[in-house]
């Protein structure tokens, strides 16, 4: 059947030109036998109940289940049972339902069509809710499908919207239709490209692309047409909403000490497009290698579409220099201090700081104090931007270290106050965050974040403990200890073995990202499998990095880990299933263009930084599989 030979080919796109053939291909869900459909819907309902049990999400659960029942063409009679499942009853049946679903003849050879179907379903209204993506990942995991498939599917979806060159086979009429569609796309772009407050608008693909998908699918599904139209209007509403929200930045004006935010801008980290985006937030700037906001994130590749928030560079630079001088001047004494703090952990924080340190405290306290306040304001501003959906209606992952993590903290805090805060943020990663570490202050975040809340901390981070001492009386600092929040989302990660001091958050970002489970260029590469050829080169350049870092970097622990990662290739231990093989084959054929652009981008954008992979044009196939094998990382759904 066509489904098997071309599992990822854009059914919605082809559907417009040959509807009669593709009707079967599109609605996989409807082709299932009734018990299969029932198990499918029940599995989603139970998963929703376990992933989003909060009362705030109950309307979302109901909405999803009701429209899924319609989507699957199931009898209305199953709704009471489905809603009971979604309400948290009958959660014991998960395994049974998963097994039944997998035994469906349609799925036996190719279980990932369920993921595909669920994704088409999730996108049919022209928005990609962060919760829908978490649900998708969860179902994918329940059906024992590698998470790579999910990202691969997302990319195919996008591809169908971006590439226009595979038109040659289409008839004149079809190309006319295409032109119309392109015109429509342009209109969305025009709406979307309005800018606010000097900040570049984050790309709008997700929000724009989705209605097009829906429009394509609607011709097949028919009934969904109305929904698709609704979302077209929704985009316009969003754009206008955004204009209003952008003007009303009220919060920060009240604090006269800091005044307005002076700089707030999104810098692209990668040029690609994806249905989910990542925003990285830098904690401080320092002279030299890490003089730019993007520098620490050079290896980040969680999504193909990534941005870096540039904020208050003047103050962050002051702070960075102060941190550096503090570190360099007191490094010997501090080695002992750090040791003490490692052993005695939090208790010592309550004791007095050494007098020698306090004498130099003035160097740091002022810039730190300013940046603390600024980061809170920037966080609130970011919240407004995300709430106004400038990024499009698609999931956002936020990653930040030090004050960048503080920006995220306040962003989440601000978002939690709003009504429509759900379904925007997928995951957040806070590394060495100088924020309150009490569980109760983190509790509201569970409402905002659909996926994981990762707190990366280091018990021996004396610098953080020191600079934070005057700013607040709190002894609980999230960057120094786990946050005791009892929720499936909360993931505490002790980075003490990777981070030996606060400054490492910037220098060791690559290693930290891997430890935390965020995808980096390297791990995407390793997924390609042909690492052996690359390894010597990688270690060599890492040795260089080591030398560069040496004066300021007393510990080489991070580098060692780094090298291990390279040799052991922990991201590729899984046996390659037949699905992946066929995926890779098709991926090689397709992704040739993105690969080239990726290389070119890396070369032109980051000339100053050692970039082990950018020059490897002799191994083009390494880029062919840019999707991740996410089952090993903490972002994969492990909670039930």
């Amino acid at each position, binding site marked *: 059947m066509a489904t098997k030979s071309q599992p990822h080919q854009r059914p919605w796109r082809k559907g417009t030109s040959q509807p009669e053939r593709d009707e079967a291909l599109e609605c996989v869900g409807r082709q299932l036998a009734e*018990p299969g459909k029932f198990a499918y819907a029940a599995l989603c309902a139970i998963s929703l109940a*376990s992933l989003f049990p909060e009362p705030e999400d109950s309307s979302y659960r109901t909405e999803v289940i009701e429209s899924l029942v319609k989507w699957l063409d199931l009898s209305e*009679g199953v709704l009471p049972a489905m809603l*009971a499942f979604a309400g948290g009853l*009958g*959660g*014991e*049946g998960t395994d*049974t339902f998963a097994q*039944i679903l997998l035994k469906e003849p349609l799925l036996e050879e190719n279980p990932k069509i369920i993921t595909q179907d669920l994704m088409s379903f999730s996108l049919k209204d022209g928005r990609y809710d962060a919760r829908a993506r978490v649900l998708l990942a969860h179902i994918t995991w329940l059906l024992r499908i590698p998470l790579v498939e999910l990202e691969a599917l997302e990319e195919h979806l996008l591809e169908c919207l971006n590439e226009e060159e595979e038109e040659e086979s289409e008839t004149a009429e079809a190309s006319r239709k295409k032109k119309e569609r392109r015109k429509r796309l342009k209109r969305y772009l025009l709406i979307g490209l309005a800018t606010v407050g000097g900040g570049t608008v984050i790309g709008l693909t997700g929000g724009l692309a989705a209605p097009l998908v829906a429009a394509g699918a609607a011709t097949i599904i028919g009934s969904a047409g109305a929904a698709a139209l609704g979302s077209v209007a929704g985009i316009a509403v969003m754009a206008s909403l955004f204009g209003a929200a952008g003007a009303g930045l009220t919060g920060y004006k009240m604090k006269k000490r800091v005044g307005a935010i002076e700089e707030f801008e999104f810098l692209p980290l990668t040029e690609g497009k994806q249905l989910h985006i990542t925003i990285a937030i830098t904690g401080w700037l320092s002279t030299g290698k890490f003089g730019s906001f993007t520098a620490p994130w050079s290896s980040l590749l969680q999504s193909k579409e990534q941005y870096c928030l540039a904020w208050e560079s003047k103050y962050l630079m002051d702070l960075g220099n102060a941190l550096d001088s503090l570190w360099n001047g007191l490094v010997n004494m501090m080695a002992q201090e750090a040791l003490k703090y490692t052993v005695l952990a939090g208790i010592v924080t309550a004791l007095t700081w050494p007098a020698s340190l306090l004498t130099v405290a003035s160097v740091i306290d002022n810039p730190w104090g300013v940046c603390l306040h600024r980061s809170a304001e920037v966080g609130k501003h970011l919240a407004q931007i995300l709430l106004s959906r400038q990024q499009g209606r698609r999931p956002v992952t936020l990653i930040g270290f030090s004050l960048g993590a503080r920006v995220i903290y306040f962003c989440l805090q601000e978002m939690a106050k709003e009504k429509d805060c759900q379904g925007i943020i997928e995951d957040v990663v806070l590394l060495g965050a100088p924020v309150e570490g009490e569980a109760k202050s983190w509790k509201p975040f569970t409402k905002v974040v659909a996926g994981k809340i990762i707190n990366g901390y280091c018990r021996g981070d004396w610098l953080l403990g020191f600079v934070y001492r005057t700013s607040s009386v709190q002894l609980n600092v999230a960057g120094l200890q786990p946050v005791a929040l009892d929720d499936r989302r909360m993931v505490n990660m002790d980075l003490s073995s990777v981070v030996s001091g606060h400054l490492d958050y910037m220098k060791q970002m690559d290693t930290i990202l891997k430890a935390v489970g965020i995808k980096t260029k390297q791990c995407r590469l390793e997924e390609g499998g042909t690492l052996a050829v690359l390894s010597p080169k990688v270690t060599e350049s890492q040795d260089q990095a080591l030398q560069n870092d040496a004066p300021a970097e007393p510990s080489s622990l991070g580098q060692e880990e780094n090298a291990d990662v390279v040799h052991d290739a922990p991201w590729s231990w899984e046996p390659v299933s037949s699905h992946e093989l066929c995926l890779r084959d098709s991926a090689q054929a397709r992704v040739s263009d993105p690969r080239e652009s990726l290389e070119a981008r890396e070369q032109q954008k980051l000339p100053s930084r050692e970039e082990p992979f950018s020059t490897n044009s002799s191994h083009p196939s390494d880029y062919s599989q840019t999707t991740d094998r996410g089952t090993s990382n903490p972002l994969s759904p492990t909670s039930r």
Partner: protein
Amino acid sequence: MDEDILTTLKILIIGESGVGKSSLLLRFTDDTFDPELAATIGVDFKVKTISVDGNKAKLAIWDTAGQERFRTLTPSYYRGAQGVILVYDVTRRDTFAKLDNWLTELETYCTRNDIVKMLVGNKIDKENREVDRNEGLKFARKHSMLFIEASAKTCDGVQCAFEELVEKIIQTPGLWESESQNRGVKLSNHEEGYRGGACGGYCSML
């Protein structure tokens, strides 16, 4: 209003296709009867609060599909059920003969052994009875089940069937007490704990 509810009970209705499981439930919850009721898909779910001996109990009733094609789904519902209603059609001997299979399945998938079972012979309003009342009674005794004959159409015995079942469950303290204390906790992880507790309570009674 929710405060005075003593406990929430999970009740399961099983039996062959077409014996009138959904009709019994519909009669019980909505007091209506539909001769053309469509076959259940997967499972149906209804909630009803009833009062037995002054105790209010909220019943979460799972009405399973009898059709063979949905049979694979049923194992998932047995878990954690405190009461089960086993239905047969008095005008179809084959549905009575299949009861043994249902009991086996119940034993296989049910997570507790003190579950209260009620045997219901449905459709006694019909003329062409094939299974005698005494046969049903004998079968119920043999398997230590409660027994009643009912008709969803005429409303005969329906209310009684549910009431008696609930009464019996409430009289078996270990069956529901631990459950009500732990309401809101996910069953999946604590299942073992419950069973231990329930069992202990039961033994001390003896």
